[in-house]
């Protein structure tokens, strides 16, 4: 009986050690964008309030994602370059978090002129996006560009020489439940996305 007890306790210690090793491999996560003012006071960076429309035609605001971890990217449906590849990585993340309940995916179109709600809806459906988990958001172009560049630090601008007319980053961002940026990855690099998924799981574990 004692032997079984020792084996049980030993296994427990081993599992705990493995979990702590796993965690120490990832965290703690930085608060990206935080800075100090001239007096040395810390200024927190978080995504500012917004109001957009999703592919279902519903108005969504920052309150919609309150207490949710968000995974965010920027795209446009007619993008002939990096977007489909990055979108495939977003789909991969969706498949990973399907049962989580506290993680949402957001894809902002930078081309609201061509990407109507109907276009976003069909695009989302055809790539297999779950509307309960993954929102494709449309809003005024100026507001989207401002958010991309100033809130998310993802370079995005209109460029007639870029494929499809827009130049934008393929980065995927990780936001915590307070809308603060805690990580990002290169959506064109599946290995980078694999690490991102581990980071997402770690961030989620910090709320347990």
């Amino acid at each position, binding site marked *: 009986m004692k032997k079984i007890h020792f084996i049980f306790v030993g296994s427990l210690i081993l599992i705990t050690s493995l979990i702590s090793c796993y965690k120490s491999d990832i965290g703690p996560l930085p608060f990206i964008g935080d800075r100090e003012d001239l007096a040395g006071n810390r200024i927190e960076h978080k995504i500012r309030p917004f109001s957009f429309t999703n592919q279902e035609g519903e108005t969504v605001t920052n309150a919609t994602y309150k207490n949710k971890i968000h995974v965010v990217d920027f795209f446009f*449906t*007619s993008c*002939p370059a*990096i*977007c489909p*590849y990055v979108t*495939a990585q977003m789909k991969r993340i969706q498949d990973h978090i399907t049962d989580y309940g506290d993680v949402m995916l957001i894809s902002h179109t930078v081309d609201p002129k061509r990407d109507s709600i109907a276009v976003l809806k069909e*695009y989302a459906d055809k*790539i*297999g996006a779950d509307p309960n988990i993954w929102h494709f958001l449309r809003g005024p172009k100026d507001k989207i560009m401002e958010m991309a560049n100033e809130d998310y630090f993802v370079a995005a601008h209109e460029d007639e020489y870029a494929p499809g007319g827009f130049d934008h980053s393929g980065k995927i961002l990780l936001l915590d439940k307070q809308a603060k940026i805690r990580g990002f990855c290169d959506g064109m690099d599946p290995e980078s996305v694999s690490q991102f998924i581990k980071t997402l799981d770690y961030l989620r574990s910090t709320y347990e």
Partner: protein
Amino acid sequence: MNKLIVFLVIALAVCFSCQQEKYTQGKRIYKALCSNCHMDDGNGLGQMYPSLQKSVYLYDKMDELTCLIRTGRQSSHLSTVVMPGFSNLREAEISNLINYLSHEWGDQTILPITSIREQIENCP
């Protein structure tokens, strides 16, 4: 005996290097121009970006593939999504690309450059 071993080693090395080089250009073109939509594994994404695995264009419609690559195509699902045409690809590049696709996801049919030239002449 030693000569035989040396001969076999050289023959194997030559075969191995030939196999490695066989689809290099086609693979490079695929990675540069096609994989963003059709993905590295050729599986596309959902119903929006078609899968190339067992695609009809790599079997029954292989004679339409050259024109499809050169002129592109409007998505059957969404007006904003278009497969761009790559009219700047040379005949040899198209041949290498198609032979790579056929090797990876088709029935291994090899299209010689003469067939590519013929198809280009008959493109609509």
